[in-house]
């Protein structure tokens, strides 16, 4: 019991400390790493007056929206819905394929995708050169879309597992009844299944939004935030400010801002979880 209490207190202490840092001008090295002072809301004002934060926020929103909300959850649902109730070999193959992406360590995925999308890589060889086009260095020219695709590849398994469990919980009778009443396939999905699994959708959105919004290793290892700041999401921006430029106070303010944004989004999803329309 005792070690746990000590570590829990440590966690609370560190979190409190992170908040406190965001009101100081503490730096990693140099004179202000010792003689720091309180600067009030200056770091927070800089979030909006200096370039960088707002751009990184927009990149993060694009990344989260397209890779998690559109890519992972829609694809995961389509996989789960189209293989519902089937026990075929194909289902096992697809499942293992999806899981491989999910289980692979972040850095391995990053290496894999950098190599596959380079100008001599797999995608150029299979889908671009055969059409008589010039090879493209995809990761350089289309950095954000490639990072988004890599994250869809990596994360779809989670949504698939969750939606499979959700669809399994729908009783067969309900679906059969709607079929007898003349609902076609599309109506069965949109009018019967989706409303029933609504809480699962909200839970899934909650988790993947939080994860994707703060996701760091895959993007960092693939692009380092570049080229330029094309893929600099908030987590990378915060790392650069804190540990490369050494502005710990400003970095702490960025992470507090991230926390607030994630918190607001979570409340939004939790409301969706509770109230039926």
């Amino acid at each position, binding site marked *: *019991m*005792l*070690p*746990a209490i000590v*570590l*829990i207190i*440590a*966690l609370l*202490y*560190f*979190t409190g*400390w*992170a908040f406190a840092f965001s009101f100081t001008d503490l730096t990693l090295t140099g004179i202000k790493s010792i003689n720091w002072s309180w600067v009030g809301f200056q770091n927070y004002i800089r979030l909006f007056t200096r370039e960088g934060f707002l751009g990184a926020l927009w990149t993060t929103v694009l990344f989260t929206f397209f890779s998690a909300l559109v890519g992972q959850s829609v694809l995961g649902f389509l996989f789960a819905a*189209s*293989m*519902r*109730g089937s026990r075929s070999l*194909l289902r096992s*193959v*697809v499942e293992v*394929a*999806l*899981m*491989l*992406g999910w*289980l*692979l*360590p*972040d*850095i*391995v995925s990053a*290496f*894999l*995708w950098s*190599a*596959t999308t*380079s100008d*001599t*890589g*797999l995608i150029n*060889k299979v889908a671009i050169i055969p059409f008589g086009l010039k090879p493209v260095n995809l990761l350089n020219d289309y950095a954000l879309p490639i990072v988004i695709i890599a994250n869809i*590849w990596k994360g779809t398994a989670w949504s698939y597992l969750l939606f499979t*469990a959700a669809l399994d919980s729908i009783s067969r009778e309900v679906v059969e009844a709607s079929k007898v009443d003349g609902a076609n*396939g599309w109506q069965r999905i949109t009018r019967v299944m989706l409303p029933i699994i609504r809480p699962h959708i909200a839970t899934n959105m909650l988790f993947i939004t*939080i994860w994707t919004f*703060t996701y*760091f*290793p895959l993007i*960092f*290892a693939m692009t380092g935030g570049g080229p330029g700041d094309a893929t600099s999401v908030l*987590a990378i921006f915060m*790392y650069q400010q*804190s540990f490369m430029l050494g502005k710990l106070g400003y970095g*702490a303010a960025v*992470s*507090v801002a*991230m*926390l607030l944004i*994630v918190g607001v989004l*979570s409340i939004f999803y939790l409301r969706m979880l509770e109230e039926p329309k």
Partner: protein
Amino acid sequence: MAGSTVPSRLIALALAFAALIWVSPFAWLVTNSLDPASVGQLNWPSSISLSNFTDALSGKSGMQFLNSIYLAAGTATLTVAVATGAAYPLSRLKLPGQSVLLWTLVLLRLLPSTGVIVPLFFTARNLGLLNLLGVAIAMTILNLPFALLLLKNFFDTVPIELEEAAYVEGASLWQIVTRIVMPMSRAGIAVVWFFSFTGAWNEFLLPLIFVRTDAGFPMSVGLYAAFGLNGAVKYGFLAAFSVLYAAPAIAVYFLLRRNMNTGFAGVGVKG
């Protein structure tokens, strides 16, 4: 659902195509790791050899493999030990406000861990823990709320009558915990161990900031440093290194797969 055959065949075709797309980067990885003359293409290897793997297991990169095992197993065992010690009393003594406290902790952990890293870094530097042990302790701290919540839910399912019976027959508290409670919540302990193991195995940011020497890197940072280097890319070596790095995480998942599913169910049971 036995619909008309044409659409269902189309769906099957689409699924097979999707699976192919999903697997192709992985196939690329495996063929390159086996090809001693790899140039980063998806070809059948001209000759198959394990020389890339022996390269990846020797010298600095072999050391990094051991570092990763030490870090992941250490973090997982530490997390389970500390969390079990606290989750059992939490499950048996009904303290007022304890579920609020637990959920607050779990919510707190949802904040980007990038935020807590700055204070963690300072503390570790002051304590001389800027090494793998420091990473393991830091990760245990970060794992704790979730591990506590999960283990408490599992301990709640062990009927208290069993423990009372053991107590009547003269078992000590230690014996009750180790002989009755822990074996009966094996699935939960396995899940916590698995999550902590893979979490630490994959962890990139903490070791990147904490560990300053090549020989001390775990594989995540080692791989990043290796393919970040400019010049001739040694695809065969990197691919073999990646396969070695990915293998334990995948193996642990398939070993614990059945326990995992019970564990997922346990998460949702109650607060």
